[in-house]
């Protein structure tokens, strides 16, 4: 490093910024900064940049790597078992059980919500309800089949779990989770289809009922109009008759 600091020497300024100046250089730059607004501003700006950089923090990651011997039961050399229990990923059977629980709750909520609506619809539109509205029943069947499939998968996993090495088990876990995700997606798609069918059928029923109601109103209006016309005709005839009598009875 130079014995004499030169104004604008970026290498010296960086060394000053990080307190890694050569002996004696620190005091030299200190003295320079008191009289040089440009270098002082440069140092201030770089310090502010450093403060801003401190905001960059990497996301929290559960690490907990460990080295294990080849002859130990776990085949992987580096694993991550030292994760706190509340942060550790659920095992496959746990995830499957959670999925079953969610499906069960969803099914119960769905049943309790849809049943009264169906009854109300049936009462109002019983005369015109088409026989093909069975989407709700089909969806439940799908869910039942899905539950059965998950139970089967779970059973297979349990039977194979004791003899499966960790790596292979992890692979089958991933496959199982993938299958469950696929089944959930399929189920969601079925639900959407069923809901759309229900909405279309309901719109059809309402439209038919509207037409029936309009026809009835039209008939009623026609009857009313006909009745009024007859009454007017009768009144006119009576008035004419009375007028004739009045004229004939009047003395000339």
């Amino acid at each position, binding site marked *: 490093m130079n014995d004499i600091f030169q104004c604008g020497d*970026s*290498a010296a*300024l*960086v*060394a000053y*910024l*990080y307190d*890694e100046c050569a002996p004696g250089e620190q005091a030299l730059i200190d003295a320079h*900064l008191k009289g040089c607004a440009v270098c*002082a501003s440069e*140092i*201030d*700006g*770089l*310090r*502010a*940049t*450093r*403060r*801003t*950089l*401190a*905001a*960059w*923090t*990497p*996301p*929290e*990651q559960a*690490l*907990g*790597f*460990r*080295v*294990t*011997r080849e002859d130990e039961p776990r085949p992987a*050399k*580096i694993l991550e078992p030292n994760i706190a229990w509340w942060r550790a990923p659920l095992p496959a059977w746990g995830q499957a059980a959670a999925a079953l629980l969610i499906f069960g709750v969803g099914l119960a909520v769905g049943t309790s919500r849809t049943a009264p609506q169906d009854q109300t619809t049936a009462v109002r539109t019983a005369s015109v309800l088409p026989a093909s509205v069975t989407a709700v029943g089909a969806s439940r069947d799908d869910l039942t089949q899905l539950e059965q499939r998950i139970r089967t998968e779970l059973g297979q996993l349990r039977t194979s779990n004791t003899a499966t090495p960790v790596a292979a088990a992890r692979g089958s876990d991933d496959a199982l989770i993938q299958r469950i995700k696929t089944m959930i997606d399929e189920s969601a798609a079925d639900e959407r289809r069923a809901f759309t069918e229900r909405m279309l059928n309901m719109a059809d029923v309402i439209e038919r009922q509207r037409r029936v109601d309009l026809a009835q109103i039209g008939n009623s209006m026609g009857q009313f109009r006909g009745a009024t016309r007859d009454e007017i005709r009768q009144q006119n005839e009576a008035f004419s008759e009375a007028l004739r009598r009045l004229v004939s009875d009047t003395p000339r």
Partner: protein
Amino acid sequence: MTTTDEELVARAQGGDIESFNQLIVRWERPIYALAYRVIGKEEDARDVCQDAFLRAYRALPGFKGQAKFSSWLYRIALNLCRDWIRRQRRAPVSQLPEDTDAMELASETGPAESIEDLVARRELSAIVEEAMSELSEEQRTAIILKEYHGMTFQEIADMQGCPLSTVKTRLYQGLSLLRRRLEQQGHMMPELVKRV
């Protein structure tokens, strides 16, 4: 009394795996942080971190203590990061997830930090990360090693295999670029103490 890295290394070289596991516990967070900041992807940084310890363990018999264990480990991790970047052949990109969950954020807050403060900190962190990604790999690595790992100029020069003056130039140019970028966006932290 805390066992030194050198003692743990010696025991691990003698076949004591648990000593190496203690070294992992001691250094996995800094190595992960280095990998994340250099490559910018959580899962890949985790893989790099794991790979670094695996390689260090395999190469441990050949480690003669010429450098500090941590420097040797950092170098292994940095080489893996470089390999990753070459494979990717693109600048590291990492953003704050758009669907940031308020409950998840709330669980991360310390006792004195509100959710608003935490969100602001995360946003600033993402802004700094984006600005850093615009630097060259050499500038970025030099700043990361200096700012977040407290290495000396000489240690960075050894790590990057370049002269000390080059390290200073990389730091100065990188910081200047960052300063301009952050000032343009209005994200520079205000000066806390005025220089007298």
